[in-house]
């Protein structure tokens, strides 16, 4: 990721050359015009590995400008290593303002979560997508899945979900739960937990999806119908947690389980770190708010990277 100019290798402003940005911008416009349809684009190699957000980074690099404020999250957190790395990349190549506050960001690049704080008109949520094709694990061939989308032939997906019900008594898909956009295209919401699916429906924000390795861009415009697939007798439902966040006491948010010791001790805390911090600043407290930090700091070495 060294961007310094040297005699033998130099990089363009904002990393991508203008021709690449134009190509990606055209794909974004098509994506917005055909909600949920995966637009093929000539994805470029980026200075971070495929699978680490190259699609999202290309989308963000193509839309970002000097007036933007960027927030980058991974697993809901601003400080996870990959989020830190991508934020640093844009600070370096685009000299853009960054924030951790959802409400202050104009562009939010995300991996695996939608922020808890409701998004507003004018914000753009950019998802990093590993496998954009919702039918891929049912049919590995692009030639076949493309036909299915063309013919709106989604029976296979319903069969798969129904098999789940027959075998497990419920739909056993917990993340990357397929949705239907504006009554036409079945779309992969990226591996967000299905808890976040309802936030995509009629959101005032523009949602853009970039899959770099698979070379696809797709979009959900603001105020667009996004419906999670389900059955009349087995309606879509999101997971609920039995307890609130141990630090801020929030209900109806997505929680991460934090292991406290070797004897099964654990607590549940907000996955959205910004949301949790904001609530604590406002005076909300969970049942472990006092001791939690001490406990965590004691048990988890702060400088050894992560084990999640």
């Amino acid at each position: 990721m060294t961007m310094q100019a040297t005699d033998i290798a130099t990089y363009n402003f904002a990393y991508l050359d203008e021709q690449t940005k134009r190509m990606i911008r055209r794909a974004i416009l098509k994506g917005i015009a055909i909600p949920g349809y995966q637009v093929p684009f000539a994805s470029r190699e980026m200075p971070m590995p495929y699978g680490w957000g190259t699609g999202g980074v290309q989308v963000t690099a193509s839309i970002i400008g000097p007036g933007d404020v960027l927030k980058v999250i991974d697993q809901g957190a601003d400080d996870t290593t990959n989020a830190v790395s991508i934020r640093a990349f844009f600070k370096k190549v685009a000299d853009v303002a960054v924030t951790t506050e959802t409400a202050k960001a104009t562009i939010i690049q995300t991996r695996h979560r939608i922020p808890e704080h409701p998004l507003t008109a004018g914000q753009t949520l950019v998802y990093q997508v590993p496998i954009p094709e919702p039918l891929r694990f049912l049919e590995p061939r692009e030639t076949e899945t493309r036909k299915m989308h063309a013919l709106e032939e989604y029976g296979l997906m319903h069969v798969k979900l129904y098999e789940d019900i027959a075998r497990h008594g419920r739909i056993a898909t917990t993340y990357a739960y397929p949705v239907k956009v504006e009554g036409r295209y079945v779309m992969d919401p990226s591996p967000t937990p299905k808890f976040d699916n309802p936030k995509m429906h009629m959101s005032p924000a523009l949602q853009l999806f970039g899959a770099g390795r698979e070379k696809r861009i797709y979009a959900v415009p603001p105020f667009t119908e996004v419906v999670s697939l389900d059955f009349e007798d087995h309606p879509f439902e999101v997971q609920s947690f039995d307890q609130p966040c141990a630090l801020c006491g929030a209900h109806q948010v997505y929680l991460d389980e934090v292991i406290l010791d070797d004897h099964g001790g654990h607590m549940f805390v907000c996955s959205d770190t910004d949301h949790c911090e904001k609530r604590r600043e406002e005076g909300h407290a969970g049942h472990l708010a006092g001791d939690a930090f001490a406990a965590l700091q004691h048990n988890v070495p702060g400088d050894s990277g992560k084990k999640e």
Partner: protein
Amino acid sequence: MYVAVKGGEAAIQNAHRLLADRRRGDRGVPALRLDQIVEQLALGVDRVMAEGSLYDRELAALAIVQSRGDLIEAIFLVRAYRTTLPRFGYTRPVDTAAMQVERRVSATYKDLPGGQLLGPTFDYTHRLLDPELANGGEAEEPAQRDAQPERMSRVSEILAQEGLIEADGELPDDHVTGDITREPLEFPMERDIRLQALSRGDEGFLLALGYSTQRGYGRSHPFVGEVRIGEVELELDVPELPFAVPLGRIRVTECQMVNQFKGSAKAPPQFTRGYGLVFGQSERKAMAMSLCDRALRAREMGEDITAAAQDEEFVISHSDNVQATGFVEHLKLPHYVDFQAELDLVRRMRAEHDAREDAGVAETREAAE
């Protein structure tokens, strides 16, 4: 997570510092110079140029030293640089018959016009470690041959005189050669696109697939018509000029595989071809590529597609090592949000399962009583 997180930025910086230290190694040992890598690790440089799709020895050497000798990482560095370069135009097709040949061998003819030239090959060396090299090892000046005639015709041309080999493939008049670095892949694809993908494909992956065709998974009865290594001229058409502008020479390896073909509803019995062309010197890659190319022509030839090497979507979708390494290695990124969702599901299902078991046990007991 909260905690690990707090040190995130500093941890990354420290990790990079440590990486830089490990890359440099013992400061008492002189640092490698790029010219040393270019001159003495030339085949590693060639592989990075070929799979990085950028013909620049110095940059490839820089990438190798920066990546601590991890060639896939070096290929990645080169690709990520190349993709930012502006596109000035497309050269004319290279004429490999006009190659300044350094090595050229044919397995199908004992002798042929232009002769067999062994060139700088490991073939016939005894693979005995040479302790002399541990101390530098001096090398004699190589023997020189007379200047080469202007053209050295290819074996395919020789076979073509008898009409025994298929002609060069035909493409529609309005066919514009594709560019996999500028257009997303689309399946099924034309051979031009496929060859581009194979040419930058991972050497190990193509080697294994080519090998699988020899062991019966898509057998193609291959003979090495010829392998040649040498320098070819690049020329660019410039709209304002009446002649093509020479850009310089690049070193390439070309393999023409000749395959027996019994004929089908679509074509008479004849020899068919598999083609390989890569930057630099790499016979292994060029030969593996030509085996894969021929296997992937199964659809065009009306052959049954039964093996992995014949499956275009399978081969081309997985041949790029930069994509493959990224996605495999991304599994070490945090996935705890999704894992939490799965934990929750497994716990619930487990609880239901246990409840059913308990109910079952209770029922059995009641029945027994």
